[in-house]
Every structure is written in C-alpha cells, then in structure tokens.
C-alpha cells in the first residue's frame, strides 16, 4: 500500500526572522522583507535590497563549526524537529534527511579566495564546509539521523525537489521519518552572477507587476518533518498537512531562460496533479515561483492559464517577503503553503501594483480568508528545472498514487575515464605544486560536440554530455528522466567566475560562467542535448553521490513517470581541491585524484529487452561511529541475501581512512555468509573522486556479465554516508 506522506513539523528562518510564527506574522502583516545588503560590500552594484537574514546565527544556537548555509539549515531543522515533538526513538536508521542547497558553503569559501587573491595567503580552513552536502550531514550528525541523507542541488528548484525526494523515500518505505527542505546563504557568487545576467531589480522585486524589472536575492532555510501517516498516528502526532502530490520536469530549452510558453512548468504541474489524483479545478491556491523577472513571470502565467484552462485560482508570489533564497525558496514557500492551509488564508503578493497586459491577471493583493483544501507550490530553476508540490489539509481525501518498486535493467552504459596517471601542476593563485592525477584529457569524442557545446561547455559538462550520449540514443516520444550527481559540482566554472569577481572588484563579470557553475548544469546540458524532459536532478552526497542519482532515477521508473532513466555522476580535477587536498595530506602515492563521468541507461525490468545487467537492490544510509562491521553487515543483510553476493566491490584503494573499514566489511560479510566472498576494488583504476562509485557501477555491470554472479557495490563516505547496490546478471531475453 502506498504510504501518503504527512507533515508533522515545520521550521524556517528567512529575512523577516526565525520561526514559523514570525514568518507568518510578516506575511499576514504584508511586511516588505527586503533591506539593503550588509553581508559584504558591493562597490559596483551598491546596497540593492535583498532578503538577508540579519540575525546572529550563533546566538540563536547554531553550530560554530559550520558554514553560513549549514547554520541556517540547522536552525530550521531544530525548529522542525521540536515542532513535530519527535521522541528520541523516532531517530536512528528509520529517519533521514534530504536537503536542497545550491551554493552550500560558497559564502565561507569566498573568504578563503579573497585572502588568497588579495593577500596571497593560502588558508583553506573556511573551505571545510564548501560542499552542498555539508548541511545535510551536519543535520544528520547533530540530530542522530542514520537513514538516507541526500542533497539535491538543482539551483532554484532544489528545495522543492528535495521535499519531493523525501516523499518518495517515505513512499518507498526507506524511512518512517524524513526531514526535508532547503538552505542557502547569500554569496558573492550568486550576487555577482544574477547581476551579470542583468536579472536584478534595483528597486527590489515586483512579481507579476507590469513594471517588474527582475529578482531580488535572498537567503534562509526551511525544513519539514515528513512521516508516514501510520507512523504519525501511532505516536499521536498532530498532522499539519498532507503532501499529496509532487512533480518534476525539465524544459530542455535554455541554461537560464524559461521556455517562453512555460511548457516545462506546465508539465511539472500536470505530473503533480496526476500523482495526487486531483483535477486542476480542485486546486484552491497557487504559490507561484514568481521571481519578478520579465521572462519567468510571463512564462509561469502562461503555464497557469493553460493548466487551469483560463480559470486560474488565486495565486501569489512570496519573493518580496523573503527575496529569492534559491534552494531555500521552495522549502520556505512550502512552509507558507502549509501555514496558509492551517490559517485558511491566502498570502498576498507584495511588490505588485499594476496588471501587466501581457499577463492579464492579478495576484492576491491582500491577506484574504477563504476555504483552502489543496494548494500548489511552484519552483523553477536554471537549466529549465521545474518542481511542483501539492499540499492538502489533513482531512482531505487526495489519494497519492502508489509507486511499485521493482528491479530495473541496465540497458546502456557511457563511461568517460579513467585516464592514465600523469603529472599535473597546481598553478597560481595557489602555491605551485606537482601532483599525480588520473585525468580524462584529451576528451575522447569531443569532436562530436556541436560548435556551441565546444565553445561554451566546460570540461565537466562535456564529459557528462559525452557519457550520456554513449549510454542512450533518443527515440521520439520516449519519456526520459535524468539524475546526474556531482560531488563537487562545476568547480572550474565557479572558480573562474569568482576569481574574476574578486580580482576585478566586480568589474567585467562573466555571465556565461555563472549558469554553468550550478550543480545541475551538466544534467541540464544532457537534457538539452538529448531532448529529455522528465525529472532532471543533480544529487550530491560525497562518495555516495552516484547511488543517490541511481535512487532518484529508479523511482521515476517505479512511478511510471519515465520510460527510460539516465543515472550517472561526474566530477572533475580542479586546482582548488588538488591544492587543498595536498595541504591536508589527502593526496598520497596511494591516493591519486581522478575524474570522469559515467551514465547508466535504465529501464524497468518488464519493459526492456536485452539488458547488460539488472539492479535488484539499492539502499542509502549513514554508519555509526566507531564503525562496527557486524552492525553494518546486518544492515546489508536486511536488504540483500548474503548468498546472492558473488563479489564485493568496494571503494577501497582510495582514501586511506576508509581502507580498514572496507577490509573489516570484507571479512565480516564472508564470515556471516560462511564462505570467502571475493573482494575487489576499482579506485586503483579511476582514481579518487566523489562520484567514483559511478565508475564502480560500470565495473560491477561488467563483472556481473563476465562472471555471471551478483556484485555488491558497497560505498562508504569519510563523513558517514553509506550505500549498497546489488548488480546481478541480466535475465535471459524472452524469445520474441
């Protein structure tokens, strides 16, 4: 039976303040949440209004050893857990977290760069929390969540997509309780980036207004506690709302601009309605993405008119309350939708004064009491990435459609890498050095890219596109989902943009580098290259990044939302992690940094014909410290019969700190199975990088085929993540 996720806790921090009550008060009071930027000086753009959180986060109790984004996320998580009144026994293996973050610890890392570029000092400590996944791990560690921990980084739709992913985890029975939401701080990167794209309204955003001139940047975090209804009822929790539907899509149109007719937005809203089992006419309110840019608001309005056949229900944008807080925005607006349901009031749309004739509709002007049963929340991001959530009152009767978990076939595989060991120099502004690396340059097949792809796309994006092409050939009318993870993201693009921004004091920005710097840029490029308009996700979770992508892709097949799903991961060699890793002693003679891209083409077990292999099990989680091989083997045997494992394929020969852990697991699994299970590794072939387990997956497919046995791909992350994936030989194809 399908488990319909219910919401039992909320937490939020944004420019109006900290706490759900404070935020709702600001909304009810129609208070403009924008104030001049104070977080850092901006000589070129000046103190343009933003949704900045001007609170002392440490005084509020946030952890000291964390980035600004981490602290925002942690504060929202604490409130959500408190408001759900979760008892201690609710935590543990059956509780997890999915967080959306677009910039992660960028604001703090920028401090390192400024010192390096302006003063020539190499002090990398502020980069410790750079990764987008840092906040989710902090939350998991702080509150004792040992179930799945994943970060979704699809720019401005991240928060909503994270909540949708958590809902799928609840539905699939991966967890009883999930924390889900989004967190992002303002950073120089996004500040300079949106200005470079000429997308910022100097007067503050005016969503849907005739004179609107762009967006306003914001920051913050919001978290929801999702549970199975059964779990909530068993513990007597108060159900605040239901998450009755969710949907995702990709425009596959442009890196920044939405499809002019809002085609992708419309598709995502339709998926959400379908999964909720609702008609458009049953939606009582839409919390629009409504950034205030000319293009977004017009395209979104067109999509709304098409969905509702001209009878658009009350709608409003909340961006003038909070600014556009990127990955946090979808989560903050989710909280607002749930509060709207609870208060039975429509939130207004500050910043609006005059109807745009091209839009021909006006948003909610004032807080209005009404009857609300089902409300929709839209979030759209760079790369044409769309995510839509539908929340319903606790007593409503939406029937969320079940998704049937079944094994999947691997029907294609594209691998870029591994390269031979070569020397690579680290160059200025870092202290010069030489390192052994496994590079994928020169890129095989680069000549097949279009002239625009060659001049525009960075190395990482090119690797991803080439791997995807090798795995899949588009077929007309086929619905294709893409989940392409990346551990570090598009470092070369981000570094080029921000180095230039810092060195030139905001002059001569690089508009094309900014949209290329988001984690979902390679996934978006694949969508444009192959015309895939289904889910387009970019998960990130350290060493288990690929497994998270596989998980998301698989669910799309289970839910019947895609005919084919591409799951992959990619990371690139870049000066900063090389230099910082050298300083921190990570790179040694045994641990050679690498790079690559792997994309696997997946289809449901029934639908597909000849396959390379089958994937029959996949589980994500976090291990406890000290590491206990017996406990972890028990965790594996809950999902996988040890008798089905012919080969254990681990992430050994990578980080030295993980070697004893993998060794102890190989011994323990053999002991419990009562026979010696062969232990193999793959990092000696591809080098060490976050998404190396994607390469491991390609090795697992090959081993399962050659040896005709089950291969357990087992991955540990130094920061606590774990994943298992069982790859088995393909079933013999049925005679035609």
């Amino acid at each position, binding site marked *: 039976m399908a488990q319909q996720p219910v919401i039992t806790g909320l937490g939020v921090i944004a420019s109006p303040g900290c706490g759900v009550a404070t935020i709702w008060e600001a909304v009810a009071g129609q208070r403009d949440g924008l104030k001049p930027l104070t977080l850092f000086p901006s000589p070129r753009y000046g103190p343009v209004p933003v949704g900045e959180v001007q609170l002392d986060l440490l005084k509020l109790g946030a952890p000291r050893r964390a980035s600004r984004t981490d602290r925002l996320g942690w504060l929202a998580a604490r409130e959500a857990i408190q408001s759900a009144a979760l008892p201690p026994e609710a935590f543990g293996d059956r509780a997890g977290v999915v967080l959306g973050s677009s910039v992660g610890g960028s604001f703090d890392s920028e401090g390192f760069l400024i010192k390096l570029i302006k003063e020539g000092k190499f002090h990398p400590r502020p980069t410790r929390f750079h990764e987008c996944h840092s906040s989710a791990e902090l939350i998991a560690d702080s509150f004792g969540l040992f179930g799945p921990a994943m970060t979704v980084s699809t720019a401005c739709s991240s928060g909503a997509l994270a909540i949708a992913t958590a809902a799928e985890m609840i539905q699939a029975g991966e967890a009883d309780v999930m924390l889900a939401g989004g967190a992002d701080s303002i950073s120089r990167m996004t500040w300079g980036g949106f200005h*470079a*794209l*000429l997308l910022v309204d100097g007067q503050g955003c005016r969503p849907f207004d005739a004179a609107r*001139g762009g967006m306003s940047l914001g920051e913050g975090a919001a978290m929801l506690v999702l549970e199975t209804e059964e779990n909530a009822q068993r513990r007597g929790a108060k159900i605040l709302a239901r998450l009755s539907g969710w949907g995702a899509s990709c425009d596959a149109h*442009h*890196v*920044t*601009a939405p499809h002019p007719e809002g085609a992708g937005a419309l598709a995502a809203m339709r998926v959400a309605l379908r999964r909720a089992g609702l008609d458009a006419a049953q939606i009582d309110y839409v919390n629009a993405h409504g950034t205030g840019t000319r293009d977004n608001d017009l395209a979104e309005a067109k999509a709304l008119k098409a969905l509702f056949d001209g009878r658009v229900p009350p709608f409003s944008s909340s961006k003038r309350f909070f600014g556009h807080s990127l990955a946090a925005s979808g989560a903050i607006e989710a909280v607002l939708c749930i509060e709207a349901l609870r208060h039975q009031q429509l939130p207004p749309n500050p910043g609006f004064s005059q109807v745009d004739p091209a839009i021909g509709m006006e948003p909610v002007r004032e807080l209005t009491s009404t009857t609300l049963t089902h409300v929709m929340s839209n979030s759209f991001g760079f790369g044409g990435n769309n995510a839509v959530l539908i929340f319903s009152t606790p007593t409503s009767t939406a029937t969320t459609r079940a998704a049937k978990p079944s094994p999947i076939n691997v029907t294609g595989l594209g691998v870029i890498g591994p390269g031979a060991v070569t020397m690579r120099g680290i160059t200025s502004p870092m202290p010069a050095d030489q390192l052994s690396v496994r590079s994928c340059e020169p890129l095989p097949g680069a000549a097949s890219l279009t*002239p*625009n792809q*060659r*001049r*525009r796309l960075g190395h990482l994006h090119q690797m991803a596109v080439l791997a995807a092409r090798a795995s899949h050939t588009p077929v007309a009318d086929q619905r294709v989902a893409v989940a392409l993870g990346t551990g570090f993201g598009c470092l070369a693009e981000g570094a080029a943009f921000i180095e230039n921004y810092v060195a030139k004091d905001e002059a*001569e*920005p*690089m*508009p*094309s580098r900014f*949209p290329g710097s988001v984690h979902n840029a390679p996934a978006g490029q694949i969508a444009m290259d192959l015309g895939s308009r289904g889910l387009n996700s970019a998960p990130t979770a350290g060493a288990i990044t690929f497994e998270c992508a596989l998980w998301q892709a698989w669910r799309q097949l289970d839910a019947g939302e895609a005919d084919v799903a591409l799951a992959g991961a990619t990371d690139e060699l870049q000066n900063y992690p090389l230099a910082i890793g050298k300083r921190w002693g990570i790179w040694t003679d045994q641990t050679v940094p690498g790079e690559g891209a792997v994309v696997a083409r997946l289809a449901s077990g029934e639908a597909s014909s000849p396959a390379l292999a089958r994937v029959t099990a996949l589980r994500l989680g976090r291990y406890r410290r000290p590491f206990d091989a017996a406990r972890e083997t028990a965790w594996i045997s809950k999902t996988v019969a040890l008798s089905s494992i012919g080969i254990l394929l681990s992430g050994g020969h990578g980080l030295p700190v993980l070697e004893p852990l993998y060794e102890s697991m190989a011994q323990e699994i053999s002991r419990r199975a009562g026979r010696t299970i062969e232990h193999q590794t793959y990092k000696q072939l591809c080098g060490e990088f976050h998404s190396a387990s994607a390469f491991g997956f390609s090795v697992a497919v090959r081993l399962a085929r050659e040896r005709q046995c089950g291969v357990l791909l087992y991955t540990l992350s130094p920061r606590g993540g774990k994943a298992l994936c069982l790859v088995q030989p393909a079933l013999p194809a049925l005679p035609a």
Partner: protein
Amino acid sequence: MPVSTTELKTRIIEALNLQDTTPEQIDDDAPLFGTGLGLDSIDALELVVMLEKHYSIIIKGIEEGGPAFRSVRALADFIGARRAGT
C-alpha cells in the same frame, strides 16, 4: 569616433570564444543572433560586458542593447553614436 567593423569582429570572437571563426567569415550585415553565428541571450550578456570593457558603454537592461545586437554594423553604429553622445 566610429569603430571599425573588423576590430569589432575580433572583439566579438574573443568575447564569445568563437574558436573556429575568423573576422572575414562574419558578414557586416548578417544577423548575430538566432541563425547566423547561432548566438543566444547569454552571448548578448557577454557582449554587454565586452562593450563596457573596451568601449566604456554601460548597458543596464538587455532591451536597451536589443537593436544594437542585430548585426556587426548595427553594433558599430551604436558604439559610434554612444561615443558621439547622441
């Protein structure tokens, strides 16, 4: 002071990383966007940066530069007019 279209083409090639294109291959009157060189709105933003960097012309909204981005000649005329203060 008018700007030569050849100089402008060199700047465009550099700003947009048009690796395989030479100034001779760009027609003075051919459309820059859509067809022709296959440029898009992000390229227009790069041209905005190029105009500021080399010609000290500041464009605040992409609509403002719209007509100027029609062709190389239109862009040269736009630069000339801005420099003449008209």
